[in-house]
């Protein structure tokens, strides 16, 4: 049995090279939120905004990161685009796709440069109670870990032959059928009740397999959540007298970024008021 070797380091890393890495999390949160509000713009302004945003990402050296984030959504974006195009029209397909791309990209800026504890501090500054701020930051860091865990589980199970059938059953079946028939119409004729039954059985076993493999993922996630709860309480998580070691402080860069964001906002508002369609 051959296993696919793991390629990536099992870590959740931040974009350390980005000039935004050490910006104040509040600034970044504001920028991401503003960018995500821009999805409401009509197409021409949306395109103009995205261009502006790409410039910001280029400066922040985050363009590849954002692109990767968006690329992950390809299996949502591509069918959606095609569906919208076919059912409604190209205009809608383009604008909907661009909006999702912007939304995904907007938060890449924040996610790739902010640690969970910075997020927690920003939320606390926004008057979110500590309990919730901490939980959100824990969830925030867990996303990458869950992905890692899922990967490890699959690996551990592959080493036992699970996932081994993985669509191979299908390939085998269809290649058998094609091999036997040679030509497509002949192949179709070979769809005997027995073949269909075999295909059905293969499908059922694969679904069952998938369900079986989700079990440890769910169990482990629940257990992890429980262990983390215990660990947090064992270190006084519920203490009413907390202090804070790190403090947020706005630097010059933060003010410049925020001012620029406000200016862009005013520009767009003005454009909106003066715009021909408003």
């Amino acid at each position, binding site marked *: 049995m051959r296993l696919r070797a793991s*390629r990536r380091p099992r*870590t959740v890393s931040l974009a350390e090279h980005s000039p935004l890495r050490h910006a104040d999390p509040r600034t970044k949160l504001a920028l991401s939120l503003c960018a995500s509000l821009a999805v409401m713009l009509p197409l021409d302004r949306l395109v103009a905004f995205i261009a502006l945003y790409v410039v910001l990402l280029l400066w922040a050296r985050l363009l590849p990161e954002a692109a990767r984030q968006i690329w992950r959504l390809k299996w949502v974006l591509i069918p959606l685009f095609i569906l919208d195009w076919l059912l409604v029209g190209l205009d809608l397909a383009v604008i909907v796709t661009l909006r999702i791309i912007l939304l995904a990209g907007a938060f890449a800026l924040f996610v790739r440069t902010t640690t969970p504890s910075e997020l927690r501090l920003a939320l606390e500054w926004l008057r979110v109670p500590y309990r919730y701020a901490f939980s959100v930051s824990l969830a925030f860091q867990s996303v990458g870990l869950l992905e890692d865990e899922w990967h490890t589980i699959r690996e551990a199970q592959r080493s*036992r032959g699970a996932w081994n059938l993985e669509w191979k059953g299908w390939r085998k079946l269809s290649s058998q059928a094609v091999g036997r028939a040679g030509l497509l119409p002949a192949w179709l004729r070979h769809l005997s009740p027995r073949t269909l039954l075999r295909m059905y059985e293969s499908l059922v076993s694969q679904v069952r397999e998938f369900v079986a*493999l989700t079990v*440890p993922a769910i169990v*482990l996630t629940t*257990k992890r959540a429980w262990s983390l709860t215990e*660990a947090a309480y064992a270190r006084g998580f519920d203490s009413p007298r907390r202090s804070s070691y*790190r403090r947020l402080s706005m630097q010059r860069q933060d003010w410049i970024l925020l001012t620029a964001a406000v200016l862009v906002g005013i520009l767009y508002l003005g454009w909106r008021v003066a715009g021909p369609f408003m």
Partner: protein
Amino acid sequence: MSHAVQAQEVAYAYPQHGYGLPSVSLQLDPGEVLHVAGPSGSGKSTLARCLSGLIPHLYRGRLTGEVRLAGLRTHTAPLWRLAEQAGLVFQNPAAQMLTVTTEDEIIFGLENLGLPPSVIESRLETALARFHLEPFRHRSPHTLSGGEQQKLALAAITARQPPVLILDEPLSMLDSTASMELVAHLEDLARAGTTVVICEHRGEYLQAVPSLQTVHLNGSASPTAEPGHRLTRAAPQVAHFRLDVSNLTVRLGGRPVLRDVTLSAESGQVLAIVGRNGVGKTTLLRALAGLQQYRGEITVGGQRPDFGIVYQNPSLQLFNATVREEVLYRIDDPDLDRYAWLMAALGLSRYEETPPLLLSEGEKKRLALAMTLMRGPRHGILLDEPALGQDAAHKAILMRLASALADEGQLVILTTHDLALASQADRMLILGENGFVADGPPAEVLSDDDPWAQVSLRVPSWVVSE
């Protein structure tokens, strides 16, 4: 005056399965050290949770008797007050990491004490230095090795300076040097007035602690495979083969983990690989199992080897409804004879219908071993820290099983921090930063001081004298 810890007829039963802790009474004063011994599943972890107050605060289930920490009744005092009194370090360090940097992990507990930043700063530095964690201070705890994570978990709790320290299997993942350092540190803390409770299988390390008290928990669980159980069986002999590893190099996240490791091993042997925490033992096994990308060559007769691997954390592999289904999963036409033999040899016979995830950590580990062996990998098995969470009786069974497999003609490669266990292998190898620094029969390797000094591992006296 109230005692640091006072437990009166404390007993607990988990709501899920009704097992837990049989009645225990104990009384500890400042500066006393208690070793809680007992076989796997006897309730050591449950006692730790009862003493720290997590039971009854976070657990339903039936708790009888009462625990007082410096006079505070755990039933009624808020959990954060109890956490200030008694610091608990859990068994599985990876599952208690709450933040994304080593530094933040320690800071978290200090902030919850309400300490001013300057005090947090100084305690942080002390903790990082004490547990040799400075090089990792900005790294994610999830990228550390098991032993390093264990040290971090200890650092995060001891930095809070609780008057009572409760440690659940703190030595299980530590190498011998780190274990001795930790025990010395605990002695210092005890001299300064901290009460220390250690639930631990590897009691040898604690024998040197002056005025050590020991309590034995005799849970219902004890090895079912009686010492005389037949472990050799007439099995088809595996044809002789030779494993060759040359210039194996692995980089993880830009850091070199293994550099130019070269190894060759004949079949029919048990190899024990020892080394400092984080030196790449797990990575080596993963590479041998084909789970890790590497540069270099790993071959058996010119081909890729087929090894079964048992992970450090066996829970990842478990997903079936019963132990029996788990072991027989995806095996066409299983050899039920071998199945029965494995279950008996590994002390799992009475759990056949139990859901695997309800077993104790040590039992899960043995289950994972049974699963791997049942698949019958062609060249042998790789065991990552097989002694983790296993009591002495099970360790003995494990080693006998390993040599039975070697007798069949398989190759068994295990990594361990337990030098006493490693000394029972046919061959002992010490892995250093740049490949193996020693290789030979355990008696020879143990008697040569140089390689141990080279990797700064200490050999405890009881290992040599055995």
